[in-house]
């Protein structure tokens, strides 16, 4: 089920009604769990078995990991959990990719191998809930937190529908304690939640789907060489689309949870106002970045074992982070390019002794800060070319067109498409820059109620008149 559908509107009203009935907390939690399974099954019912399997295995393995004192048995349990979780992810997400690469390798060494093409359907959100359960068992292994006492709470932690399919990726201490005591949204939470839900839907339905997606698709699916203008407009369109789509989903998820009285972690913090790439990754998909930092970058050595190890850990984290997004070498290249950016930035910062982006703004004027943010945005755009292109050939063609080295002369985009991008993208940049140190709810609470009513009405009316319900979110495929 997607947030931008009529089904969800009805589903959400029913859930809100049930959640506000004078029932015991346990019954309400069972309601939420059942609703979460329905939310997931509404996409493809059989895959709910995977979710159950993952939940049951990790609940018991997590408990055993925490209480087991024998280091060998403990390691064995961890391996079982890793094989269970990553094995499932590998099969469903990377099965075809691994087979294709194996076949290519066979052909490279002269072995003629032609296996049947597997028809594997990717279960929605498998990358997200795998990371959710994985961090739990690793935390249990390291005794970072206490095991969840009840199966009901653990199931709800894994399955809670607002975060289930596309995050934010939650850690046990962030959500499990919220299930331990009764929660119903206060009027403030309810209103805040509804405002966030409206904003998220506006970002997704109106801006990403209605205004930008067609332009991005047209340019990235083009077969001929494009003029420089068309190439850049297409990449800007995707840059806006991917942010609005994913941040829109996260905003909806946080808003929906808030309406039920639960607080989910922030996932985006105006990333296109980032100054530099470490700042970008502190603002883009924050829960994934922090997950990768804690469960990959630090175990790989982090920054505590010398510079060479730091650079290695950084690159490995970005490469694997890229691969997490999709089973294609273009995603690895996307991660690798970000890794290189981070290397360069780290090298520069180490030389100049700059600690954080705030230093740059404090030391220089706001205009210089904006210049750095704009530069970061432009370089991030280059990485999106690899993220969105399904082959290196297409990515290369587009990069050539963007650079002007091999641009075509056959114009592709209509003036209307160009205008949409030329208006929306600068507005996003401006909005991110102005809002970079604040939060949308803080602003909503500060402005006058008349202005808020007008803005809120505009968002809702734009959603209604866009008439674009039903398309799935880009990150569902990851």
């Amino acid at each position: 089920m997607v947030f931008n559908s009529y089904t969800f509107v009805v589903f959400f009203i029913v859930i809100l009604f049930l959640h506000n009935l004078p029932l015991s907390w346990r019954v309400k939690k069972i309601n939420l769990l059942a609703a979460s399974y329905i939310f997931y099954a509404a996409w493809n019912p059989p895959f709910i078995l995977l979710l159950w399997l993952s939940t049951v295995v990790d609940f018991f393995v997590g408990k055993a990991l925490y209480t087991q004192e024998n280091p060998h048995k403990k390691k064995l349990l961890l391996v079982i959990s890793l094989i269970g979780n990553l094995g499932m992810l590998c099969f469903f997400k990377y099965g075809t990719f691994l087979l294709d690469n194996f076949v290519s390798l066979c052909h490279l060494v002269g072995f003629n191998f032609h296996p049947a093409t597997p028809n594997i359907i990717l279960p929605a959100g498998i990358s997200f809930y795998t990371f959710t359960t994985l961090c739990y068992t690793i935390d249990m292994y390291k005794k970072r937190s206490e095991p969840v006492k009840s199966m009901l709470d653990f199931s709800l932690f894994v399955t809670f529908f607002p975060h289930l399919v596309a995050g934010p990726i939650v850690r046990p201490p962030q959500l499990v304690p919220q299930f331990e005591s009764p929660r119903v949204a206060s009027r403030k939470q309810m209103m805040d939640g509804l405002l966030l839900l409206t904003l998220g839907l506006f970002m997704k339905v109106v801006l990403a789907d209605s205004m930008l997606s067609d332009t991005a698709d047209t340019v990235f699916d083009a077969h001929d060489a494009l003029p420089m203008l068309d190439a850049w407009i297409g990449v800007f369109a995707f840059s806006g689309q991917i942010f609005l789509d994913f941040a829109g989903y996260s905003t909806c998820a946080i808003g929906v949870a808030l309406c039920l009285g639960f607080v989910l972690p922030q996932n985006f913090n105006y990333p296109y106002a980032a100054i530099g790439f470490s700042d970008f990754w502190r603002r883009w998909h924050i829960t994934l970045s922090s997950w990768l930092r804690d469960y990959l970058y630090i175990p790989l050595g982090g920054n505590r074992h010398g510079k060479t190890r730091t650079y290695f850990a950084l690159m490995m984290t970005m490469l694997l982070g890229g691969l997490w997004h999709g089973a294609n070498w273009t995603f690895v290249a996307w991660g690798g390019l970000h890794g290189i950016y981070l290397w360069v930035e780290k090298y520069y910062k180490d030389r100049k002794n700059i600690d954080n982006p705030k230093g740059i703004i404090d030391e220089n004027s706001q205009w210089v800060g904006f210049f750095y943010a704009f530069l970061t945005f432009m370089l991030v755009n280059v990485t999106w070319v690899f993220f969105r292109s399904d082959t290196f050939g297409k990515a290369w063609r587009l990069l050539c067109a963007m650079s002007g080295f091999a641009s075509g002369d056959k114009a592709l985009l209509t003036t209307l498409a160009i205008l949409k991008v030329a208006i929306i993208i600068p507005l996003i940049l401006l909005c991110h820059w102005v809002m970079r140190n604040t939060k949308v709810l803080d602003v909503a609470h500060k402005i006058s109620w008349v202005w808020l009513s007008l803005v809120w009405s505009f968002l809702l009316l734009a959603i209604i008149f866009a008439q674009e319900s039903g398309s799935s979110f880009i990150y569902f495929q990851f």
Partner: protein
Amino acid sequence: MNEKSLFKSAMVTLVIVVGVVLGYELYLRNQGVSVDYDDGPPLWADKRAQIYGPTDKTIVFIGSSRIKYDLDRGTWRRLTTAEPVQLAMEGTCPRPVLTDLANDPNFKGKLVIDVTEGLFFNMAPPFMETANENIKYYYDRTPAQRVSFEINKLLESKFVFLDKDFLSTNARLEALQIPSRPGVFMMPTFPMNFKRNTFGRQAYMTDRFVVNEAERNQVKAIWGFFAKMAMSAPPMPPAAFDAIFKSVKADIDKIKARGGQVVFVRTPSSGVYLQGENMGFPREKFWNRLLAETQCPGIHFMDYPAMAHFDCPELSHLKKADAKLFTKEFFRLLSQKPGFTFLQNTNPKKL
């Protein structure tokens, strides 16, 4: 702003939104805008799921836009209890749908294929796109999408402003027809009165369109635009046509082997459009060969005086009043074709 005042904003927002939406709805109704159903993949998939009805109670129609305009469901229902399942698509080659039905072992029923030569004998991918998208949607649709479709159906039946093709923000922006750089392909926009769609997927032009010369000329110009595009494309080699005939025959043979029956129909066009079609797709080389190779009966509008006289308002589709006459005559002819004679005993008045 405190907690109370955010609630106040929410309430004012609700009032504004409800007021604007209802005001807009009333304005559109006052302008004579009627209910229209979005003819996207969910509606098509809903009809696609209906092809498995009893073979003497279900007639499946595939083709392009003409059969959608020309087959009047109301008239059909007065003539027979057999359900017309409309799977034709505007501006689309029906062959992918034919292949889909041929490859569906559960489809053993009666099939009518509407032939608009320029689309039927076309191999360009853009003319297959909608068909392939709709077929994919039918097989992939989720339980949530089915529920959304039912809710959407209810809303679309009540609100005329829910019209994605003409009243969505994007449609309004497209209608501005902002000029583009030379060489950029701009999809022409049809007048709203030309394209209304019922829940049964019957398309019709409104009476306003029929009497509005400017709008009729606008659509004629669009046909001219597409004809010019087709003429500028490289001609299809004879081998490509041979391949089309071969694939159509193979698909039809599969349906027949399961006990299914197929009839071709050439629906009316008129004026210079018809002249162009006759020149580009001579009857003996296309229509006659199609019937001969597939061994299927056919109904060509030119062969029957009751059908041959229609004057299409924009050269390619019948107005509603003519669609009723056409449907009556078409039904009479269809019910005489092998495999379709059972239709003679399905008149609701006689039953």
